[in-house]
C-alpha cells in the first residue's frame, strides 16, 4: 500500500472503481463545493478536482480538494505543470498531503491559448512524465527533486492521464509505458466516444502487459446534446467521437429526452468498457453537469459502492 487512499485500497482489492469529477467554483465562495459533494458521497470512490481546466481560472485544486475531504468525499487532486514551476508544485504537494489528500493526478495541463488568460506566461517547467517521476521520488525516496531529504514524505497514490484517441496511435501506448516507468499507479483516460479505438488501444496495452502494471480507469463523459458532441468533434483536438452517437443524439429534438439519451449512452459505454480485460474502473466526467453522476452510477449497476475498513490489507496478489 503506497498511500492507503480509498481508491488505492479498492483497486488493490480488485473492485471496479468509480471516480467522479468536479470543477471548482470561479469564485471565492466554497459553498457550491459542499453542495456538489452530495452528488458524489456514496456514489463514487473518489472525485477529481480540476486544476484550472482549459486554462480558465478557478479556485485552486489544493483548496477545493481540502473542502471536498472535509465533506467526507475522497479527492483526487489534479496538478498541472502549466502554472507552476518545480518549487511551487512540490510545495503544493506537501501542503495538500499535510491536509490528508492522498491521490494526485499529474498532468501537463491545457495550453493558455484555450483559456481566459491567453496572454499569460506558459510555465511548463516539467512535463507530465517528469512530474510523475518527481512525486514518486518525493514519496519513495523521501527526497525533493533537488535530492534534499524530506522528513515526512507525501504518501500519495500517483495518477497520470492517457489519451487513446490522439495521434500517432503507437505513441499513445509508448507514452503510457513511459508514465508507468516514471511511477504512475493509476491512469485515467480521455473520455471514450469511440469504443473501437479504445478497444484497439487496450489490446495494444495488454499486448505489452501494461494493464498488469497500472490501474486503468476509462473516461466516460455524459453529454446533454448533439451540439456538445459536435463541438468536441470539431473543436477539441485529440478527441474521437463515433458518428453513431452523434446520429443518436441528433435524432432527438426534445431537450429532456436528449439528456436521457446522453445518460443512456454513458451507461452503455460503461458496460462496454467494464467487460474489457485490463480496465480497472471508470472515471465519469460530466462537464458542468455533476448532478447526473448518481443516476449514471446507479443505472450502470455500480451501486452500492464497496466500503473497506481502513486497515484491511489487499486481498489479491495484484502487484501494481
Amino acid at each position, binding site marked *: 500500500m503506497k498511500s492507503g487512499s480509498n481508491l488505492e485500497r479498492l483497486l488493490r482489492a480488485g473492485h471496479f472503481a468509480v471516480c467522479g469529477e468536479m470543477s471548482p467554483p470561479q469564485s471565492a465562495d466554497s459553498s457550491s463545493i459542499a453542495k456538489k459533494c452530495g452528488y458524489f458521497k456514496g456514489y463514487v470512490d473518489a472525485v477529481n478536482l480540476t486544476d484550472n481546466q482549459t486554462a480558465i481560472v478557478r479556485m485552486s485544486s489544493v483548496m477545493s480538494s481540502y473542502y471536498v475531504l472535509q465533506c467526507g468525499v475522497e479527492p483526487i487532486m489534479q496538478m498541472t505543470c502549466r502554472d507552476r514551476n518545480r518549487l511551487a508544485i512540490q510545495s503544493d504537494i506537501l501542503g495538500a498531503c499535510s491536509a490528508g489528500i492522498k491521490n494526485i493526478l499529474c498532468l501537463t495541463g491545457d495550453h493558455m491559448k484555450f483559456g481566459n488568460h491567453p496572454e499569460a506566461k506558459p510555465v*511548463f517547467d516539467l512535463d507530465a512524465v*517528469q512530474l510523475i517521476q518527481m512525486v514518486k521520488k518525493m514519496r519513495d525516496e523521501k527526497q525533493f527533486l533537488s535530492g534534499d531529504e524530506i522528513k515526512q514524505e507525501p504518501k500519495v497514490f500517483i495518477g497520470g492521464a492517457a489519451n487513446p484517441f490522439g495521434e500517432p496511435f503507437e505513441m499513445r501506448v509508448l507514452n503510457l509505458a513511459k508514465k508507468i516507468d516514471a511511477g504512475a499507479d493509476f491512469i485515467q483516460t480521455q473520455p471514450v466516444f469511440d469504443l473501437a479505438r479504445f478497444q484497439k488501444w487496450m489490446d495494444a496495452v495488454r499486448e505489452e502487459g501494461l494493464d498488469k502494471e497500472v490501474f486503468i480507469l476509462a473516461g466516460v463523459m455524459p453529454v446533454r446534446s448533439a451540439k456538445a458532441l459536435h463541438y468536441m468533434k470539431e473543436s477539441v*483536438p485529440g478527441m474521437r467521437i463515433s458518428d453513431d452517437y452523434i446520429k443518436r443524439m441528433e435524432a432527438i429534438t426534445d431537450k429532456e429526452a436528449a439528456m436521457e439519451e446522453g445518460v443512456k449512452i454513458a451507461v452503455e459505454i460503461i458496460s462496454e468498457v467494464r467487460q474489457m480485460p485490463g480496465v480497472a474502473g471508470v472515471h465519469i466526467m460530466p462537464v458542468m453537469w455533476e448532478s447526473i453522476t448518481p443516476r449514471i452510477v446507479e443505472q450502470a449497476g455500480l451501486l452500492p459502492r464497496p466500503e473497506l475498513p481502513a486497515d484491511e490489507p489487499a486481498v489479491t496478489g495484484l502487484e501494481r
Partner: protein
Amino acid sequence: MSKVSENFAKFCEKHPRLYACAVLAENAFKKPVFRCQDCGQCILSYTAFTCPMRCPKQMRNGPCGGTREDGRCEVYPERHCIWWLIYRRAKRMGRLKKLRRIQKPVDRRLQHTSAWLNVFAGKIDPPSWGKD
C-alpha cells in the same frame, strides 16, 4: 567524455570570447538545420533529430493529448505536432526505442549555453548516435 575534451570545454569556459565563438558555430549549424531553441541540453539524438523544444508546451517525453487527427498541433493548427513528426521520423530511421527513455527535467541554467561543450564538460548526458 575524455579528459582532453573536458579540458577543452573548461578552457573555452574560461575564455568568454572563445566560448561565444563556440556558441556561434553551434547555433550557425543547429538553428537553421534543427530550428534549435538553445536549451543547452540537446536530446536530438534521442528524438530522431527533431527538436522537441519547438513544442508550445516544451514536451520532452512525448506528445500531449491534443494532437489533431491530421497530425497538427492543438495550439498552432498551422504547424505539425512535433511529436507526430518525431514519431514518424524515428520509425523511418529505426530509432523508436530511444523515445522510450525518460528525459530529465530541463536545467534552466544551461539555456543559451553550448550543448556540445556541455557534453564535453560532462554536464549533460552524451548523445546516443547509433540506431536501436
